[in-house]
């Protein structure tokens, strides 16, 4: 896609690129253009190359580039679809699409499963959950005894690991999150509804032309 290589990415996305992204996501053409304003500001915060690095991603979340966080790293890894260590605008939009209030529950469940499948084994395994739980408790400065952590894990796996094989597969995960919808709360960003108001400077660069083919999947 024309606007996606690093040389031209600093320019506003070409009309065809915005159209394509709008056609395959819950975003409209204008929302894609507004997302570009956001992407440009966070992807040029350290290196002005029009690509989003892990440091820039962390700087956007934590407001400092040195903060190393297992959870932010994990989200970045999933955004980095091409596994190049950087995220381009196209992948940024497609990944954020999962967090759209109108995105399908199926997509949210699938993304959240991959989020917790730290070692990409196709299963959420008990050691992975323990690793994340300890990391969360550490970042919150809560020190729990190991037996307490094991009790929390026992309680969770009794409910989620229906096959009792010490790991959670995609089917078990779907059943589990449908019974515990609060787990998916992080998978929806209400802010994405207001994207054109949050980053309004797109209005002066918009190449949008009113035509029938500009309908996004949301409509």
């Amino acid at each position, binding site marked *: 896609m024309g606007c996606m290589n690093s040389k031209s990415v600093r320019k506003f996305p070409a009309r065809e690129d915005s159209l394509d992204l709008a056609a395959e996501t819950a975003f*409209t*053409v*204008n929302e894609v*253009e507004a997302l570009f304003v956001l992407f440009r500001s966070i992807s040029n915060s350290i290196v002005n190359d029009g690509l989003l690095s892990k440091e820039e991603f962390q700087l*956007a*979340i*934590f*407001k*400092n*580039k*040195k*903060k190393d*966080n297992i*959870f*932010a*790293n994990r*989200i970045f890894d999933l955004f980095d679809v091409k596994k190049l260590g950087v995220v381009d605008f196209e992948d940024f939009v497609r990944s954020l699409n999962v*967090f759209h209030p109108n995105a399908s529950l199926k997509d949210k469940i699938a993304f959240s499963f991959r989020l*917790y499948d730290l070692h990409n084994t196709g299963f959420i395994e008990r050691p992975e*959950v323990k690793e994340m*739980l300890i990391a*969360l*408790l550490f*970042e*919150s*400065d*809560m020190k*729990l005894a190991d037996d*307490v952590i094991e009790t*929390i*894990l026992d*309680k*969770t796996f009794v*409910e*989620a690991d229906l096959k009792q094989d010490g790991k959670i597969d995609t089917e078990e995960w779907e059943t589990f999150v449908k019974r*515990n919808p*609060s*787990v998916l*709360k*992080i998978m929806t960003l209400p*802010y*994405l509804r*207001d*994207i054109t*108001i*949050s980053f*309004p*400077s*797109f*209005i*002066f660069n*918009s*190449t*949008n*032309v*009113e035509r*029938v083919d*500009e*309908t996004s999947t949301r*409509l």
Partner: protein
Amino acid sequence: MESKPHVLMHRYELGRLLGQGTFGKVYYARSTITNHSVAIKVIDKDKVMKTGQAEQIKREISVMRLARHPNIIQLFEVLANKNKIYFVIECAKGGELFNKVAKGKLKEDVAHKYFKQLINAVDYCHSRGVYHRDIKPENILLDENGNLKVSDFGLSALVDSKRQDGLLHTPCGTPAYVAPEVIKRKGYDGTKADIWSCGIVLFVLLAGYLPFHDPNLIEMYRKISKAELKCPNWFPQEVCELLGMMLNPNPDTRIPISTIRENCWFKKGPNIKNKRPVVENSTVSSSSTVLSDQNDCDDIAAEANGESVVPLSINAFDIISRSVGFDLSRFFDESFKKKEARFSSRLPANVIISKLEDIAKQLRMKIKKKAAGLLKLESLNEGRKGVLSIDAEIFEVIPCFHMVEVKKSNGDTLEYQKILKEDIRPSLHDIVWVWQSDQQLQSQQSEQHQHTDDQQQQQPQS
């Protein structure tokens, strides 16, 4: 043959013309997705660029984004194509307040209602660093339920419009509603200028005419500067006193909004029957719960039986998902002052609940117990964005380890943050193990200073 309605971006069916402004027209429209009525302000991009008003348009969007309040016209979204910019805004079907006043003065109770809503809206704007600068009945609309909606932020100023003297310097607004200090073209305080305009609006609502008017503009300016107020004999004495303080020609001694809120006429409800019940005791006991639904009845029954509210049990994934690292809302919301706060406690649920009940008593808030560890604390007085309501939800991790989420469910975020910081957090001190967000952000803030230092070192030496 009937012409096919024009559909904008396949999403809004444009209807009749509602009005015309500096940069374009405003149309009535209907969303083809939700079927809701909206208004669409169409702005000519070329005209904006040629007149160098791009920043003004961006500022109007920023202001309307900041000013989310039930008595302020809401901006839903912004659309654009090569030639035009479209503001999709809330449609106030009741028309301009001006049309009501044009027919004659309003009854005191109606004027009181509108004035109270106007002050709430203006106070909310000021708390966000926004000054309207053009408050007049033509810019005050009504919805289908007769609620007031402030519109037209085209002239509004943000805090960063101030010069080093802390004052605004652009004369804006409509002469009859403009404060004397604005006319004098000296620096002026946006909050004080808006209060003057609100005073003029109140006078017009109750009198049906302007307090300082003259066909000769110079003469009108002189009258405004002198501010010799003559109230009609049908004005209640307390209104005359309030207007005297609002239409004080000296902005330094003009009444502030906080004092207007304490004014007896402002506070008194014109319709006594509809007033909220006032609790006579200075403290509000947890048993003075208003029964509003079956849950409340069950809760009171549960208390009578000596049962406690059982908190929801949460799992490892619920805990993990609370990490700041998973919070992508930080891309969009730069102020980290979230609407929720979270703490953990190593005390049993009943101890946490009784502590929250004590806090509600201290704050003179009504407390409702809901099912599954949810407590609702509700203010007895209306704030600048309605009644402040706070939810405290208790989650059990294991029997003696609980997580508690405190969040605003209604009212003004700034009022909530103030009460959280000054009252709730200090009172919870003895039951809190860790305030989660504090710890998560602590290391990042100390590193943030380092990041700022790095940036300063990278600056070329002058």
